[in-house]
């Protein structure tokens, strides 16, 4: 964010506790000092108001980055982010675009109870006009963020507070990662595992274990959900003839079900087994640790699904 803000004065950051407090999860540490209070702006707890305000400013050509302390709180701003931002270009017949990034923590796993544990990719991927990026590692976070900021359309950037502590190589120099270009995290021949965001790590763990049992998995990290890199996914499934999707949102009408549907449609003759999906259980997120862990996708569930589609169960 800072690199981009140095490049373009139209970019500004706003959200709750982003300035003086350096961000609730310290994501914007040091940014107030560097850019000052006109460009790194603390907001009261008024999600609907400040999301809408930022959208209005984007119509005038500014390029806001809006932090939701948690995507769970974006529900308060559902109307501006779903009804205004993604439809502005269409409704105005191409006159007004909305170059804006909404970003923040997404997903369960911190025992925060059901109001604070939303995986909004399930809800928001249904809406045309917006893009969704969901990085799984620090390198991608930088490259995808730069692309998001430079994009002329609204981008929902889904971070995972659970991943903030992971470390990885992040080059100082300039690079971007295009949207709609998946990464193959691990090559394999027996089964394709498609995932994005935090569950990519569970998929990698599962693949590791399965390799020891002689099952070779190809793990694909989608990186963006809208657009989704169908080319890479279909090519992999045509090679492995089996597919498991791992998606932390609920199963019903989710990005996971979209992948299953598309793969079934386009790779039907290549599949040895119907596509299986590993999701969070179809219940609100519970507080109790044992229940929450059981609810979320995990390596155990992924291993079981892979064994099933490869007939090794």
């Amino acid at each position: 964010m800072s690199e981009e803000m140095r490049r373009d004065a139209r970019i500004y950051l706003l959200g709750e506790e982003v300035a003086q407090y350096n961000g609730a999860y310290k994501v914007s540490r040091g940014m107030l000092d560097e850019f000052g209070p006109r460009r790194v702006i603390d907001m009261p707890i008024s999600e609907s108001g400040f999301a809408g305000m930022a959208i209005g400013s984007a119509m005038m050509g500014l390029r806001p980055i809006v932090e939701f302390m948690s995507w769970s709180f974006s529900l308060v701003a559902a109307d501006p982010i779903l009804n205004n931002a993604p439809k502005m270009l269409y409704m105005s017949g191409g006159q007004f675009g909305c170059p804006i990034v909404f970003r923040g923590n997404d997903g369960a796993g911190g025992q925060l109870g059901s109001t604070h544990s939303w995986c909004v990719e399930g809800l928001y991927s249904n809406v045309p006009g917006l893009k969704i990026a969901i990085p799984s590692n620090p390198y991608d976070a930088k490259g995808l963020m730069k692309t998001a900021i430079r994009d002329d359309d609204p981008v929902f950037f889904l971070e995972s507070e659970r991943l903030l502590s992971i470390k990885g190589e992040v080059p100082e120099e300039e690079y971007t990662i295009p949207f709609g270009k998946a990464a193959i995290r691990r090559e394999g021949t027996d089964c394709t595992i498609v995932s994005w965001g935090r569950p990519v790590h569970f998929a990698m763990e599962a693949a590791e274990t399965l390799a020891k049992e002689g099952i070779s998995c190809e793990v694909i990290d989608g990186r963006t959900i809208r657009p989704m890199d169908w080319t890479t996914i279909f090519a992999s499934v045509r090679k492995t003839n089996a597919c498991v999707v791992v998606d932390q949102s609920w199963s019903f009408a989710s990005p996971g079900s979209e992948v299953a549907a598309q793969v079934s449609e386009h790779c039907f003759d290549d599949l040895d087994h119907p596509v299986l999906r590993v999701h969070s259980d179809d219940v609100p997120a519970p507080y109790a640790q044992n229940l929450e862990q059981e609810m979320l996708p995990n390596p155990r569930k992924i291993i079981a699904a892979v064994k099933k589609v490869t007939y090794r169960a």
Partner: protein
Amino acid sequence: MPNATLASNLASHLVKSASVTRTEIPGTTLLKWFYDMALIREFEVRCMQAYQDKKIGGFCHVYIGQEAVAVGCVAALEHRDPIVTAYRDHGHALARGMHPKHCMAEMFGRIGGCAKGKGGSMHMFDKANNLYGGHGIVGAQCPLGAGLAFATKYEDEVIKGGKSDRVTMCFLGDGALNQGALHEAKNLAGLLDLPVIFVVENNGYSMGTAIERGTTMAHKIITKAMGYGMEGIEVDGMDVLNVYASMKDLCDRVRATSRPAFVDMRTYRYKGHSMSDPRKYRGREEEEQYEAEDPIGKLQKFIKDRKVATAAEIETIVDRVKVDVRDAVAWADASPAPGLEELYHDVYVEKWGPYTGTSLPEMLRESGVRSQE
């Protein structure tokens, strides 16, 4: 940076009791309040320890410093009056009469908790005690509060054909002043003559944001009542006698007139926003100023001065609180984690597909509350 609004909190312009005078309050009541406030504080201290020991997860917001508010407000209500609050809710649950063992078991995520361990710290519910929740989304409880008042009035007037006779108390933090939900709720309450009191627990901060950095007219937030045609009062929330007396008057008025009201309840949270907040945004000096105004210490002094109890008798109460909370922790710790079958329980009232219907938590099973089933 000193907090300008807070500096005026202790000023004398705040409402002092009108019809109820301090001397009218019976000694037994004073001792009960003392027990309740000490219980809340000890409970929170043990929560902080348990959080360090990883017995409690997620977000944990403690009520230390604000005890006089929940205890004084609840005392001003009848038990049948509903209350609803935000996520800093342990104090309200205990003041309302939830047994500390059920509250602590909820914190621990155990089956004996008020919500079987499914809600956690921010979501305390107690049907028997007319507590309609702690709510985690800032401002969310405000329209719900209007809805509770809508229902009591509807029941009393439309169904029973009588006169509206219950008052709903809806607690919120100063941070919720900035949410659209509150403003819509106030308008509806004003429009529909709903008997609801919005009590702003104005502790001067929402996380690291001092009130005047996030709210217009921070020095006079009762102006935010007038625009909706409702009465607004300012109350010193660091003194339980004063809270009770002011709120008792107000409750009487709201009950009689069925008009909503708004309270700027000046208080202070002694600890960080949650367990991970180093409080860099305020000075130690400011904290000390409020610690000197400690609501529990103040009540203790009043009890002694009025010779309601001797120092030794007060000591006995303090000891009892310690034992009660220790027992609650032990009970919570002995309560098992919820079984995995609980995942699909209480999602729907109806049984269908993987869902297994609903049932009451252990806490309510003997209380005569009826299940949704």
